[in-house]
């Protein structure tokens, strides 16, 4: 049965996920998104995966959320508080959400994973390191290249040539 920490974490995670999408201000929305990401990190702690949890906190809460906050601050003030959506789409979206939740939830509750429990010890994080440098080493190198390429691409995209030309001339 679910314990108290699990229930509290799921309330925080799901509640702040809804708040991130529904808050009027984008700044509060991105702070609520931080709550969701931190809640998922808490779930990783509950699942005996402290390495992934700390990685999640460092990458998501530490950098991605701050990046999003800075992007929101670059946008005009009235756009931050303006909600762009129409009513009919909203009801259709809520219907779609309920269909997904109910159907997938019913499938999970009916399936055999309801009976899966484990008494086995947690995965040692040394195994993760061994995985990374033995079986997954090409993927690790590829991931580094993808990260470098995407950061370079982001810098090239966000560059302003008109401002640079003004400065040099």
């Amino acid at each position, binding site marked *: *049965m*679910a314990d108290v920490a699990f229930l509290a974490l799921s309330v925080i*995670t*799901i509640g702040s*996920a*809804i708040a*991130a*999408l529904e808050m009027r201000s*984008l700044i509060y*929305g991105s702070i609520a*998104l931080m709550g*969701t*990401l931190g809640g*998922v990190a808490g*779930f*990783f702690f509950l*699942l005996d995966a402290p390495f*992934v949890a700390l*990685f*999640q906190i460092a*990458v*998501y809460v530490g950098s*991605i959320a701050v*990046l*999003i906050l800075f*992007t*929101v601050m670059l*946008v*005009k003030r009235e*756009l931050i508080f303006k909600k*762009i959506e129409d009513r009919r789409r*909203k009801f*259709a*979206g*809520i219907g*779609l*959400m*309920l269909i*997904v*939740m109910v159907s*997938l*939830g019913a499938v*999970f509750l009916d399936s055999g*994973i*309801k009976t*899966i*429990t*484990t008494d086995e010890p*947690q*995965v040692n994080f040394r*195994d993760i390191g061994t*995985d*990374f440098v033995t079986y*997954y080493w090409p*993927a690790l190198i590829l991931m580094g290249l993808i*990260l470098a390429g*995407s950061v370079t*691409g*982001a810098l090239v*995209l966000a560059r302003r040539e008109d401002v640079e030309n003004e400065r040099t001339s």
Partner: protein
Amino acid sequence: MSELVDFTLVSVALLGIGIYGLAVKRNFIRMLFAVEIIINAANLNLVAFGRFLPHSGGQTLALFSIAIAAAEVAVGLSLIIVAYRMYQNVDIADFRSLKG
């Protein structure tokens, strides 16, 4: 300790909220929030199944997924900045010049 089905149900809830956000919101930044929520639901499933099998592959794949999501957010945010500079707006209904 909680059971596997609890974690999958939380993940389904996060997935539903993310799909709602992608379907309803027309603000580019909010849609990026929704994508982040969906990615986190997937990561939660990976780690949960990896814990209950038990196998280290789940955590390894979750780490890869987090790193790739970081790259995706960097590119997405710079696309937002470029689009905002061109249209002075973040409404995706306005970004129609590539739509034909």
